[in-house]
């Protein structure tokens, strides 16, 4: 059974073009980019090209790109660098809906002497900007707000936030792991000091990420070691993956239009048809301020894991904000922060598309999902009492 893969916010397939560029660097071109001989030097040249390609995707200069092992490392590096650069400041600000890479880091810092502020969102998943601005003070070392949310797809006004935070002389970091390569990201416009991105969300392999560090931003390395990455990250470069990220960035940039048109239309079709054909469904998040590929749909009175496993029988791969899928008992912190009612939070499914998805696949999902929800509702003791709306 060929999978119908609509879980691209979790991870993506490696593009064949990306793999093709990577392969020689596993086999014949195995030189160390730090070496003095031209065999290694040729590898260094290819890394330089990758750095330029990543920079181009986000409107940065190559010198502002640091390669890391993943989005999480980029996040940790950015936050720790900001704290080390501001040793006297003990206040940190983020949102309540961040990815665990930021959320758990901030919770950890809060246990270790820092004062953490978590900015709430409204029922549409939009950030409470007044709350954020009202909490900026002289003690604030860093503000970290994601560019776009991984579950709802809601995009935050980072350009405005960056400006406001910058005006106070506070470091601003944004986790753009879900945004980079899906919507235009231009660091010439958005005055963030640091930005995290990840390869495997944009058809590069897992295990490669990047951190944008604006020129002039105070920095201190997270991994201390050799002089690689201009002394900003020790450790021999993950050469093939860096090259893969470079190619993937170039492709993502050229696919941005398609993302905003064809993929967005497919997403809208999926969402419109499912919410119309299945009663008691709702879309989580502000519809007009979202990533073009993401849709989080709450199916009331059914449970997400059960939906996922029934979809799995047809090869449909999506994910859920339900408690049962993660091993925790409460639905996702994002849906709870948005105040999504329990009737729908446990039954929320996230569909996330990529440029590889086709209309046939979307039609297949539209055909298969409604009977699944119907079947599970027939099992549910809550359904009959609530179906007569």
């Amino acid at each position, binding site marked *: 059974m060929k999978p119908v893969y609509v879980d691209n916010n979790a991870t993506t397939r490696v593009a064949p073009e990306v793999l093709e560029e990577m392969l020689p660097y596993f086999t014949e071109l195995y030189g160390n980019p730090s070496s003095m001989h031209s065999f290694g030097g040729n590898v260094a040249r290819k890394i330089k090209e990758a750095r330029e390609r990543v920079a181009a995707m986000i409107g940065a200069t190559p010198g502002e790109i640091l390669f890391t092992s993943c989005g999480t490392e980029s996040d940790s590096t950015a936050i720790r660098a900001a704290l080390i650069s501001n040793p006297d400041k003990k206040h940190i600000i983020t949102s309540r809906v961040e990815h665990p890479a930021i959320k758990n880091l901030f919770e950890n810092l809060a246990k270790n002497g820092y004062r953490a502020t978590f900015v709430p969102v409204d029922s549409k998943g939009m950030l409470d900007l007044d709350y954020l601005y009202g909490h900026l003070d002289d003690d604030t070392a860093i503000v970290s707000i994601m560019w776009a949310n991984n579950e709802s797809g809601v995009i935050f006004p980072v350009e405005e936030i960056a400006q406001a935070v910058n005006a106070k002389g506070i470091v601003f970091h944004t986790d753009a792991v879900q945004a980079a390569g899906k919507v235009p990201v231009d660091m010439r416009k958005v005055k963030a000091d640091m930005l995290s991105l990840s390869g495997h969300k944009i058809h590069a392999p897992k295990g490669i990420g990047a951190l944008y560090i604006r020129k002039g931003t105070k920095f201190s390395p997270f991994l201390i070691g050799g002089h690689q990455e201009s002394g900003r990250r020790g450790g021999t470069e993950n050469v093939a993956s860096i090259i893969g990220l470079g190619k993937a960035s170039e492709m993502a940039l050229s696919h941005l239009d398609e993302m905003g048109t064809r993929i967005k239309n497919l997403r809208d079709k999926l969402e419109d048809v499912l919410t119309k054909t299945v009663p008691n469904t709702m879309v989580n998040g502000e519809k007009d301020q979202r990533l073009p590929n993401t849709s989080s749909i709450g199916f009331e009175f059914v449970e997400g894991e059960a939906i996922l496993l029934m979809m799995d029988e047809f090869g449909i791969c999506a994910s859920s904000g339900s408690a049962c899928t993660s091993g925790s008992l409460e639905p996702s912190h994002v849906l709870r922060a948005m105040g999504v009612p329990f009737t729908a939070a*446990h039954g929320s499914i996230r569909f996330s598309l990529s440029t590889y998805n086709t209309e046939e696949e979307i039609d297949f999902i539209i055909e298969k999902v409604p009977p699944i929800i119907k079947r599970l509702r027939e099992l549910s003791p809550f359904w009959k009492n609530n179906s007569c709306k």
Partner: protein
Amino acid sequence: MWEYTAKVKDHFLNPRNVGVIDNPDGVGEVGSLACGDALKLYFKLDDNGKITDAKFQTFGCASAIASSSALTEMIKGLTLDEVAKITNEDIASYLGELPKEKMHCSVMGRDALEKAIAYYRGEKEKKIEGEIVCECFGVTDIEIRRAVTENNLSTIEDVTDYVKAGGGCGKCHEKIQEIIDSVHSKDKPAKKKIIKLTNIQKIKLIEETLEREIKPALKKDGGNIELIDVDGNRILVKMRGTCATCSKSQITLKHYVESKLRELVAPELVVEEVQQ
């Protein structure tokens, strides 16, 4: 992804005995939408007191549906006395096995069964016995004690897997640990060693405990506490931050600060707040 046995998958994809029995002899309902799973179980008895029909409705994940389906199959043809002996372990083994984190689904089956039997026997809906420990999921100390005893659980995580307690905000972890400890200490009663502290040692230990345990917890809610003096066994403190204006600060002081200090420093300590 969870590793479900073929039998769990089968009972999830092809659930047996779904539905409602009109005029049932027994009916039991547990769980809620907020909890993420719920089960309503019905049965009908024949003239010999054996279960002739059983049906269920379940809201929940695959293992909740499979556990419910399995339970209805297991109880058919049995008398109520036989049925009353079914444990959550029995339900799990009927399905091969359940992932550890999903054991609460089998507990839900057992609970619904007990309620259905009580319904038949005309036992009034039991009032919630014991004291609610986990407020997020409404789990009492008696339920936790039972799960710990019956399944020989040894960690808070185990308790969460079996009865959900502690899976929400986490405020009750300390109480759950106390219950686990008390169940296991029953097996081999051991007296806590009492070490006599000098005054200097005592004050140091109080300071350390405040810094390490108590202040971080209060700071989470924007509060703080300051040690003013130690007079024998009287610890004089001042509440700061949000604690200073919080109407519940006296409860925090006695139930949290004092009990923590008694536990970690000396059992005879008394915490008092000094007035300005």
